[in-house]
């Protein structure tokens, strides 16, 4: 009959033994009334515990209480304050540009002429390089598109991300 195998009954109950171990346990139980009875008790206790606790139901008011407590917590959407802030920033930027324009007004003609010449030269140089190295231009263009897509996705993820930071405990 061999020695009792009660310490293996729990794993046997969970089907967590190797094939050899399972065969040993089953062979032992065929010839040992005590271990066989102990196994029946394990099965019965597990069923009783499961049934006893599955009959426990949460009080009806629990769901309502949780939702009432959650309601004041802001959702992860941009608040009105965010839009007011954005509007204030844009307005400040516009005012700054207006002031700069007023200061630079006497030199406007010179600045426009210099700007035009620099842009013209840059465009000519760019055209020259594109015609001599087309593969470099395509690579540069692909890189720019990738960078733009990446930035867009990151921005989307950031906007979707919840601002609430509290941990589980």
């Amino acid at each position: 009959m061999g020695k009792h195998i009660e310490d293996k009954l729990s794993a046997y109950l969970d089907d967590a033994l190797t094939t050899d171990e399972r065969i040993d346990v089953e062979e032992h139980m065929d010839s040992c009334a005590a271990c066989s009875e102990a196994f029946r008790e394990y099965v019965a206790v597990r069923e009783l515990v499961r049934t006893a606790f599955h009959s426990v139901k949460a009080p009806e008011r629990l769901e309502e209480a949780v939702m009432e407590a959650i309601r004041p917590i802001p959702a992860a959407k941009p608040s009105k304050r965010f839009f007011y802030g954005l509007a204030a920033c844009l307005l400040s930027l516009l005012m700054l540009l207006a002031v700069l324009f007023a200061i630079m007004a006497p030199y406007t003609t010179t600045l426009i002429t210099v700007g035009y010449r620099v842009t013209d030269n840059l465009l000519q140089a760019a055209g020259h390089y594109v015609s001599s190295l087309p593969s470099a231009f395509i690579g540069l263009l692909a890189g720019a598109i990738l960078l733009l897509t990446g930035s867009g996705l990151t921005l989307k993820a950031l906007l979707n991300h919840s601002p609430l930071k509290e941990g589980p405990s």
Partner: protein
Amino acid sequence: MEQALERLIRRARQGDQEAFALLVGQYKDKVFRYAYGMLSDRMEAEDVAQEAFLKAYTSLAKLQQVYAFSSWLTQIASRLCYDRLQKRKREQPTDDDRLERIGGSEKGDPDLYLDIRQAMRALSPQHREAILLRDVEGYSYEEIAAMLEIPLGTVKSRIRNARLLLRQAIKLETEENHGEAYRG
């Protein structure tokens, strides 16, 4: 089913309270049952369940794998239960006060269920937890190891010892109650 659940969790993560309400409805019995099994007190279990859902709501952004929502929620409830048990230990209340609050309006054999729940109370919190996670909720050894952050071998031995002790405690509880009934 799983996809619907994932969608709900994702919506709740973005602050959709309606989606979170559906999650609460779906998991409230599970969380309450676990807390009740650990604390043996309906009022405290209700408090813990409520607190667990609030913490889950405010921490949803930290949930790494959406499919592990159930074990993550149980882990939150588990930590809250241990906090309560620590607090209880410090305050040292009499067990008799709490015993009167056990019970409820369950179907089946209430005396038998009371025996089982009282036998559960005889176990240590770790052993109670092992029984609740494995035998009541049906989590695998691996899931329990991840949830409790303990090695797989410890999970196996804890479940084995818990079952052994529970079997003994139920026998004792049943014998005592039947003895009293005969004497009465």
